[in-house]
């Protein structure tokens, strides 16, 4: 079950550029003021499907009973050693877009802070989805979330990805003509699932530094770490290697 309350303020502050610094009291109280209206505007929804992987060649992965063809070296590398793939889409809903439009007219500082908090909120939802999958499939560990537009995975896959999880119908998430997500505060992702009983040898592939940055948003923390980093419960890269 997704849970947004409270919004992860540390994460929001990180998006605002504060790093590990704490904002001053004026900003902190503004952040607090923005939280409730944002939560009211959020109608989080998500949809995902889990598919068996059918690697075809070094630059193509097919999925069983699924029209989505994952192309490019980066996604193949990302999913190496995995048996299944989660295709997921999540959104905060169009109410957040409207709130941000209003705030950008009436109160720019609040717009900026709300935007960052919404970024943190959608991240929380994605983490909750991964947790839900983990509960259902405890024998699988998960890679971090790879999205169309990262590395050489074409952004043009967005539309097919959304139709695979019936995102338009089930969660109201569609692409614009230029393949951007609408509502804006949304995420689509591809997560590899690796059966822990089938791990042979250490797997700790790193992904290119720039992978997330290419999309210009939401660079996963795990970018320069192991692809199973961040959210698999075996967090630090070093520790992971030991356990494997």
């Amino acid at each position, binding site marked *: 079950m997704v849970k947004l309350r409270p919004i992860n303020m540390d994460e929001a502050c990180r998006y*605002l*550029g*504060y790093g590990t*610094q704490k*904002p001053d009291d*004026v*900003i902190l109280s*503004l952040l607090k003021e923005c939280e409730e209206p944002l939560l009211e505007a959020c*109608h989080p*929804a998500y*949809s995902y*499907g*889990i598919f068996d992987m059918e690697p075809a060649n070094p630059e193509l992965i097919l999925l069983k*009973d*699924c*029209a*989505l063809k994952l192309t490019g070296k980066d996604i193949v590398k990302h999913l190496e050693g995995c048996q299944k793939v989660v295709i997921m889409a999540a959104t905060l*809903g*169009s*109410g957040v*877009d*409207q709130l*941000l*439009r*209003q705030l*950008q*007219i*009436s*109160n*720019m*500082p609040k*717009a*900026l802070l709300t935007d960052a908090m919404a970024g943190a909120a959608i991240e929380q939802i994605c983490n909750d989805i991964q947790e839900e999958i983990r509960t*259902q499939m405890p024998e699988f560990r998960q890679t971090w979330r790879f999205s169309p*537009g990262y590395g050489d995975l074409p*952004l043009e896959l967005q539309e*097919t*990805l959304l139709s*695979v*999880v*019936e995102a*338009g*119908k*089930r*969660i*109201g998430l*569609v*692409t*614009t*003509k*230029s*393949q*951007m997500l*609408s*509502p*804006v505060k949304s995420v689509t992702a591809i997560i590899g699932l690796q059966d822990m009983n089938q791990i042979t040898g250490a797997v700790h592939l790193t992904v290119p530094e720039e992978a997330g*940055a*290419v*999309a*210009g948003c939401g660079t996963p923390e795990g970018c320069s770490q192991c692809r199973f980093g961040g959210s698999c419960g075996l967090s630090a890269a070093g520790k992971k290697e030991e356990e494997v």
Partner: protein
Amino acid sequence: MITILDGAMGTELQKMGLELGGVPEVLNLTEPEKITAIHANYIKSGAQIVYANTFGANRYKMRKTGHSVEELIQAAVRNAKAAVAETGGNAKVALDIGPIGALIEPLGDLTFEEAYDIFAEEVRAAKDADVIVIETMTDLYETKAAVLAAKENSDKPVYVTMTFEANHRTFTGTAIASMALTMEGLGVDGIGFNCSLGPAELVPMVKELYTLTNLPIVLKPNAGLPDPVTNTYNVLPEEFAATIAGLLPYGVQFVGGCCGTAPAYIQAVTDTVRKWENGEIVMNPEEQAEWEALTEKRNNRPMGICSAQKAVYLDEPRVIGERINPTGKKMFQQALRDQDMDYILNQALAQVDAGADVLDVNVGLPGVDEKTMMCKVIKALQAVVDVPLQIDSNDPEVLAAALRIYNGKPIVNSVNGEEKSRRNILPLVKQYGAAVVGLTLDENGIASKAEDRFAVAEKIVESAVAIGIDKKNLLIDCLTLTASAEQAAVKETLEAVCMVRDRLGLPGVLGVSNISFGLPYRELVNTTFLTLALQNGLMMPIMNPNSDAMMGVIRAFKLLMNYDKNAIAYTAAYQNYTPATKAAGGPVTIASSKEDPVEQQIRTELGEEPAKLYLAVVRGLASEGEQLTGKLLNEMDSMVLVNQVLIPALDTVGAGFEKGRIYLPQLILSASVVQGAFGLIKEHIAKGGAESVSKGKVILATVKGDIHDIGKNIVKVLLENYGFTVIDLGRDVEIQAVVDAAREHQVKLVGLSALMTTTLGSMEQTIAALREAGLPCQVVVGGAVLTPEYAMQIGADYYAKDAKETVDVARKVFGA
């Protein structure tokens, strides 16, 4: 007799091997016999209308299939007709229109007109279909485009079902009442629900809809909810049919199934429906009582209007905000000439915050193209406010254009008793299903006696009803005359309002504020008149909701007349009320920093208060900043205030930002303090009649294809703070629009922003187009994915990494 519809197509095709994410419409050509077989199975199970396999057969979704819309739709209808022939020839075939797959602005980047064309193509391709169904819609605006396309390109019956969530709203926030009001207005033949939820979840929604419309209700629930892992649905046919049985008394005239349903479900529904029709299913006393209560509610439904998100019913007085109107407002007039949407939107947001239920929109101003401006303002307004709008114009052409693009059911302000007005305006009201205000004046002007104005009202009602406008969509404005000029007429107005209420049963509208024109202490006259008018039948005062005293009358009236049950709204508004003391203006205390040389200098040169204003900006203290500015404007030259206090303060903050000592939120907070101060300064200058001084015009745009505009808007705030005039073209801006604006305004600097790698291409093309047009402007670019190198590579003159750097660029370009 209830008509049985079919069940799911998509999930049936998946059972036959269609992969998830595949394109089912192509199967109309590649596997017609499979499609026909599915239809035939539904007909054999009782379906009387089958939906052709055309749900996604629009030009946008089919663009990569290599097939035309016409080809796919004709094949689909043919396949369905084959099934009809095979099963005895009685069933009908529906053209099934689903969502386009991309959203209309502001949610997405399609225009309303593009959406209309896409749907119209589908409608024209389906000549052989018997009816048109528009289903699984989540956006009222898109639904309206589809309905207009269906009705204007065919004579077939049109049914609309939308998809709602458990919170009784669609994903885009459309309310059930908004669907009912808008679709009823557009003249569709049935409305209802499909998809998204199972039958049990739809029970409360069907009951709600039953109270909101007299149209036949169409129902196609899912077979429960899908399991994300197995993709199966959890409600079985018997349970499905049993739940539907309970809804049959509630106006349901068409029933079938959506995702996860199969022929067995339709068979179960058919059996249940026929039993119900034969009187074999009866309501128990409890169900009977609920049905009677809801039926009474349905029969006593008051007049309603709506935006997509909000319906406003005249079950109590409702306030129409009057402030979006240039008459007598210099700043507003300037905003219209400058196409400054933010100014207008701010006026709208402030009125909604203050309690307006509806906003009147009037943009008539000599020298401004009213039709273009009206559409532009309405589109901008419906992107940010959720209250319904009242379209205020006398020009039928303006009204027609505005009614077409309005998302919901608006009020038209107004028609009057003149023959020409009735002839030109009432048909538009009918065509687009709006409500309308009738002004009680005619060829003879405004009658002085109440009876004569009443007679004009009667004439308007007669003409409206004669062309099929429901009396429920009429409001009457008996016209407020100025008390100082026509004192005796005030009583006549009040009496006319009363007669309209009692004899015609129609709600009154009045522009309230005019009453006190030319008198001192206008508020006293206004509030008194408002109270009297409300008591006489005024239901929709057109007034300034920003006036606490006027809103106070409304709240108190609703409390006293038992509209505001248990005084909930009244208490919420006033529980912390303390009588206003003298206007705030006491000393502002802001501790000096002692270490800031700029502050010290301002204190020495200009004094204590300007130094405090400087600090208020640096520290982001909005109300202190506003208070100090207001005070200082009376004491010193506004340009000194700008150049020697506000801009140095911004520079201090900017320098801290560059050094990484302060962060973006603080920079923007300081900027917004300056923005507030600038608002006051502009008003001050406008009052003095002088032209405001600009350091130069800058065009800003987020490039074509990109809908992320917060970065551009931050730049805008900061540039304006530094005294530049920003012409904001918005987001997803056509290349040509940038070129045209640069030419028209003869700007020296164009700022372009793009967030995504995919839209860098259109940034490059925009720059190229500016160059090709031979315009002498320079271009500054910015955005998350840009680098200085790339900026040069695509032909920009400057790269700015953030808003502060953009200001530096502008200062350089303009030598300011």
